[in-house]
């Protein structure tokens, strides 16, 4: 059970992370929709689940977190700032040539385990890491966050078969189930449902959880078993654009490049004040 103060801390962190994400949505913009959908998940994992910290990032016994749906990296950048991996000032270098803070993660950012951007890769990479941890008899866990749209990629399912075959019970696959792929709803393009049954059928112990409820996430992750020979799958039900009602669940607002004024009024919206009016062009980019 999460104590009230722990819950408050998580909510405070998540709000800060959303502020960072929003500030990265200008001067070139970012994939804000998917970043906002996974922000609570990423904050929860780093705060409560992953055995890793800035001072033990080279520790071979640490838990690994791999962001396979790399375009939501602003959520990770923001979390890294709040957790002390990355100095806050570096976020001002977003998309600048003097740093490596761009639209997808890379290992020049302290805390990033592996680069991504091309979908359907990091479950496989995670399998390799998980295999090595097992070979060495180590107890670290490997968490891979995938997008629901990303599950179109055959390599994800290939990797699940292999993870199950190799009894990788140290592997946790989390699906940010925000119901959207780039341009359309997943169920309108390549339906995934019944997703939980598919993941179960591929050999994963599967749980479904509200990806914006820290209490719900805590009850799933704190009870997870790592000695049953089975990979874990968590379907986290989320909302694309969560926290900003004016872009939430809008197909045309997945990549946004707002004006400075819009950022100001969206910041108010994020804090529960008046809704923003957005004039800037809706972008559909992939």
């Amino acid at each position, binding site marked *: 059970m999460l104590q009230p103060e722990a819950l408050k801390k998580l909510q405070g962190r998540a709000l800060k992370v959303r502020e960072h994400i929003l500030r990265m949505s200008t001067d070139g913009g970012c994939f804000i929709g998917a970043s906002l959908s996974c922000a609570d998940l990423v904050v929860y994992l780093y705060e409560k689940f992953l055995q890793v910290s800035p001072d033990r990032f080279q520790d071979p016994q640490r838990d690994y977190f791999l962001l396979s749906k790399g375009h939501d990296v602003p959520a990770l950048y923001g979390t890294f700032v709040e957790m002390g991996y990355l100095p806050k000032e570096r976020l001002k270098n977003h998309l600048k040539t003097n740093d490596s803070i761009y639209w997808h993660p890379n290992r020049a950012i302290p805390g990033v385990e592996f*680069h991504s951007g091309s979908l359907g*890769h990091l*479950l496989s990479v995670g399998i390799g*890491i998980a295999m090595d941890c097992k070979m060495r008899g180590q107890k670290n866990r490997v968490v891979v966050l995938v997008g629901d749209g990303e599950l179109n990629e*055959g390599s994800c399912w290939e*990797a699940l*078969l292999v993870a199950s075959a190799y009894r990788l019970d140290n592997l946790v696959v989390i699906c940010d189930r925000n119901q959207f792929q780039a341009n359309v709803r997943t169920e309108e393009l390549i339906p995934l449902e019944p997703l939980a049954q598919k993941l179960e059928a591929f050999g994963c112990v599967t749980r479904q959880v509200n990806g914006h409820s820290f209490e719900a996430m805590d009850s799933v992750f704190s009870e997870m078993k790592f000695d049953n020979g089975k990979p874990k799958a968590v379907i986290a039900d989320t909302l694309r654009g969560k926290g900003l009602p004016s872009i939430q669940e809008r197909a045309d607002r997945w990549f946004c490049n707002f004006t400075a004024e819009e950022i100001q009024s969206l910041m108010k919206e994020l804090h529960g004040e008046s809704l923003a009016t957005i004039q800037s062009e809706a972008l559909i980019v992939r």
Partner: protein
Amino acid sequence: MNYETLLKTLVQKDDRLVVMTAENRAVIRSLPSLMGDRFIDTGITEQTMIGAAAGLALRGRIPVVHALATFLTLRPFEFIRTDVGIPGLPVKLVAAVPGFYSEANGPTHQAIEDVSLMRGIPGMQVFCPGSQEDLVLGLEAILMSPHPSYIRFNPRSIQQEGFQHQKEFKIGKAEVISRGKDVALLTYGALLNEALDARRLLEAQGLSVHLVNMRTLKPIDEEAVLEATRSTKLVVTLEDHFQTGGLYSIVAELYLKNRVTADVLSLSLGERWFKPALLKDVLDFEGFSGPQIAEKIMARVREL
């Protein structure tokens, strides 16, 4: 000593080595029982195998990855480029039945663009041993080098009386088999055996042949190519590969860089798939038997 025997010795010496396959065990059958957990067969999942190899390499392992050359290079190409190439991880790709060795399998199995693709990945080394013995000579150096590497697996021995490879193997150094004044014959992989036949026939006709087994196509032995070019009147690039991106292209790039030009005869597959058949018949049909190679070279020499 063959590849499998040597690999067995090496994996026992160094537990960083893990052996992986996408269910192709032809040349590693004795390794599973020896290696336990360090032998990983992912099933017919080339993408996952390469991604997992990257993950293992991140943790300090040296994955030696096996599959048929076409499926190893093409199916997971983006995984090789993205997960192995971008971070420069020491994953070793052992490509079985490359080039003419796919014999009667047909175009689906013809890896004749593999050199082109692999050398196009920054930092990837490309090894094309002229025989199994040549592979054995270089294997330890290749596996221990800190770079991603592609190995065009060669199961054949050279079928020439008394032929012996030069024992010294160095990454980026070619094996100059003979020095000559008329024709330079540059080749790699399976066709070295036929090149040796061709040399014998050309010499019988009074030509002096400079024969080079390139061994590694990336890094290329520039000096060996330039020396061969300087000392002869005709340079022949011989390869079981499309003309694009293989040895002919490498030599052309090297000439441009060094402001050199030469008479060059390219003996390659051009832009065609080869006729599926047993190796000897493929060589005959496609014009890559020793006598046919010699004949094509003689015809060009007469035009010079």
